[in-house]
């Protein structure tokens, strides 16, 4: 299993802050995004943007980054701190 977290406006749009998925369901973040977009039109729309950032185990990654059992994957809109 791995965890998926959502933050900011994206979490509001999905009305979801976290979920768990079987480790075998996605080999990398790119796959994961494809699978999530297929859930329903709301998810498809919210995730169909190039304005997403992603982290695996608290480190920013590119979509090619692999996902393995036990990972914490986070998907979020551009950050706006400071």
């Amino acid at each position: 299993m791995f965890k998926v977290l959502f933050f900011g406006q994206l979490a509001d749009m999905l009305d979801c802050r976290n979920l768990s998925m079987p480790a075998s369901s996605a080999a990398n973040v790119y796959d994961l995004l494809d699978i999530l977009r297929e859930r329903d039109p709301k998810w498809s729309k919210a995730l169909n943007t190039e304005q997403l950032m992603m982290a695996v185990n608290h480190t920013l990654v590119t979509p090619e980054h692999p996902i393995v059992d036990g990972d914490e994957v986070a998907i979020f809109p551009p950050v706006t701190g400071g």
Partner: protein
Amino acid sequence: MVHIAVQTADFDVHLLYQSLVEANSADGAVVTFVGRVREFNQGQQIADMFLEHYPGMTEKALHELAQQAQKQFTINRVSIVHRVGHLRLSDQIVFVGVTSAHRQDAFAACMWLMDELKSRAPFWKKESTTQGTRWVSG
């Protein structure tokens, strides 16, 4: 020295400044930046703000930025404090302080840290304006 804090409570600029200069006779330059909630953003009047963050990743990201700054610039102490949760008009949001032997290095590192923090650290601002609530886009 690297000091990182992510907190709901306000921070004391004076104490943070003290920790940068205490027992530090090597550094002639101290540059600090404080970011505050300002009245107008993108043309709309701000009443208050909610700052969401990614617990666990946030402190790690700030630590990494501080360490990278210490490698990249000739600086010594770095202090970064960022607030989260509900903030009101004029509240302090972020403190970044850098010490160095020379002012150019301290300025450059402080500016770099703020640029990186704004593009890489997992914080998201939701503003309450006179026209309702909106997430600030990156």
